[in-house]
């Protein structure tokens, strides 16, 4: 094992307690942004002081999908595109849990797009962290529903001619209560956003733009991961409260970041409880916060 995993490092690194250090080194490429996002999330968990025993991470498939396996939390590495419905079941089965979905753009809005819009519509009580690297990383650089127009991918070898999603706009129009976008460069804002969203309710969506040097940068001759970070530095425009109709991302154009929506809206569970209390009165028996497990004496 490399020196990275020895006990000294584990003790000294502030987020080591949040990581399954025995699984290090991870599979992510040098200068990949996902580790940074994980670090910010772990810092936010530490800052907010939430009960870590009650935090679950659900991932789908892909590079970001591996997060659920690296964090020392209850972690579920589910199927491609299905992290949100898996998380929905987990949350409804034990409502006291803080259920976080941590996955990539291809997973959550490509194959899983239908679940994304419906969970946002329901304002389902989930914190959804989407790492957007504009491409399918794990399978080798194929076109994603987020690939900017004209950018190259392995399945759009002459440049992408499909219009991409603007994810904050998608989430906001479907009904998410919290919507933000940051890049891997704004680690402080990103950590604050995570901490803030942990304290909110309903469908909380945070898009994180992350560098993929191995595929996105290479196929587009954009240099190294460091060059992508430099690009974020020069081209990020922070506009909190921006109209999400105006935050779409063009190829190598400015990236609008910030908190776009932060509204108190009743969540799926709140709507359900309130409605049943109103219509059924005393006959309503809600599922207890600790879940529907029925304990019995044999």
């Amino acid at each position: 094992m490399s020196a990275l995993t020895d006990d000294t490092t584990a003790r000294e690194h502030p987020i080591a307690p949040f990581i399954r250090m025995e699984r290090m080194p991870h599979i992510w490429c040098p200068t990949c942004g996902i580790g940074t996002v994980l670090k910010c999330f772990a810092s936010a968990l530490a800052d907010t002081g939430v009960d870590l025993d009650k935090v679950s991470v659900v991932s789908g498939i892909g590079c970001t999908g591996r997060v659920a396996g690296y964090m020392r939390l209850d972690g579920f590495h589910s199927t491609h595109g299905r992290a949100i419905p898996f998380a929905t079941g987990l949350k409804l089965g034990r409502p006291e849990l803080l259920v976080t979905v941590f996955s990539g753009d291809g997973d959550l809005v490509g194959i899983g797009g239908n679940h994304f819009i419906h969970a946002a519509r329901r304002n389902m009580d989930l914190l959804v962290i989407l790492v957007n690297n504009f491409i399918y990383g794990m399978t080798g650089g194929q076109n994603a529903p987020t690939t900017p127009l004209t950018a190259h991918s392995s399945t759009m070898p002459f440049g992408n001619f499909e219009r991409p999603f603007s994810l904050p706009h998608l989430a906001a129009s479907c009904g998410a209560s919290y919507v933000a976008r940051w890049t891997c460069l704004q680690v402080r804002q990103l950590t604050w956003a995570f901490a803030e969203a942990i304290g909110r309710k309903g469908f909380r969506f945070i898009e994180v733009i992350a560098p993929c040097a191995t595929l996105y940068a290479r196929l587009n001759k954009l240099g190294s991961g460091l060059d992508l970070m430099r690009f974020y530095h020069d081209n990020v425009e922070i506009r909190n409260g921006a109209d999400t109709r105006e935050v779409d991302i063009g190829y190598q154009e400015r990236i609008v970041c910030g908190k776009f929506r932060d509204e108190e809206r009743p969540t799926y569970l709140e709507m359900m409880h309130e409605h049943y209390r109103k219509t059924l009165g005393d006959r309503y028996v809600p599922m207890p916060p600790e879940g529907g497990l029925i304990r019995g004496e044999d």
Partner: protein
Amino acid sequence: MKADPRGVLTGTHYLDGDFACGEGAMAAGCRFVAGYPITPSTEVVERIARRFPMMGGTFIQMEDELASMAAVVGASWSGTKCMTVTSGPGFSLMMENIGLAAMMETPCVVVNVQRAGPSTGLPTMVGQADMMQARWGSHGDYELIAVCPRSPQEAFDLTIHAFNLSERYRVPVLVMMDECVGHMTEKVVIPPAGEIEVVPRRLTQRPPAEFLPYQTNGSLVPEFARAGDGFRFHTTGLTHDERGYPVMTAECQAKSVRRLMDKIRLNVGEIARVEEEDTDGADVVVVSYGITSRVARMGVALARERGVKVGTLRLVVVWPFPEARIRELAARVKAFVVPEINFGQIVLEVERCAAGKAAAVCVPHAGGGVHDPEAICQAILGAAR
């Protein structure tokens, strides 16, 4: 343990198979259901949606069957017993996450009220052609359990049994109903809660520091930890070791997948269930399941009138297949006659187990109706010759 009385509608009822199945789930302790509307299964979730709010249960209508099945797998890790319900097209969409449930060893129940296919087929009419899909529908190797009720009473009883088996073996258990049983209305007796035996989720008693999610300690079924109890465990659909961590080697694959197979294959004696009549001294045995087992009775009666010694074997649990019993019978009967509402699925298993010692005669039906008992009788007469 005994059933939670809140879920048990004790009494004598006049119910269709779909409603009875829903009552069985609630009696078994199911408290989370995710579903998507599809004929002829929807009445199961309609029943549950109406009764759940009064017993601490949550029903959610998901956006599709992929989501329903994924939600059920997620919910099971909360410790809540859970189920989804569908028919052919939805069953196809559930396959990937049925495989996830098998790989993660997640207890759950999936009801398929079979209609005629392929594709959209005959949405409101009977079929039994998903039997092999039940067995092998998801990719990769795995074992699961499938039960096959023949009446509304059995829809109730076997749904409880399905939950109990899924808890005991940590596998998805399929309730393979058919449209006829689902929509047939008959007397259903629901006993008092104190008389219904249910298997609770078996939570590990180990402290988190000593717990590994897939350690079996000599048994074939690992102990369960649910999310939120401080175990901070990991599970994945990737091939994994006892820690639940991915290990991408042929050795780990051999070890973990073999156990997934063995926990069912080595327990076939415990799990398999058939119901036999007059198989002693029979020349021909009719093997059937679901609604076809009821139609076959008439065919058997007609054949007996014409002097054939014919017995019946009904598959109550279809998967795992009762190989040993079919082999025993094959050594002393002339033939098996297998009527089913498809062009020959379970008959292939019968033929395999008979291994040439007895004939296996397929009596097919394309679906949309049940067999003419005379056709079954003629097949019996032909086989007896």
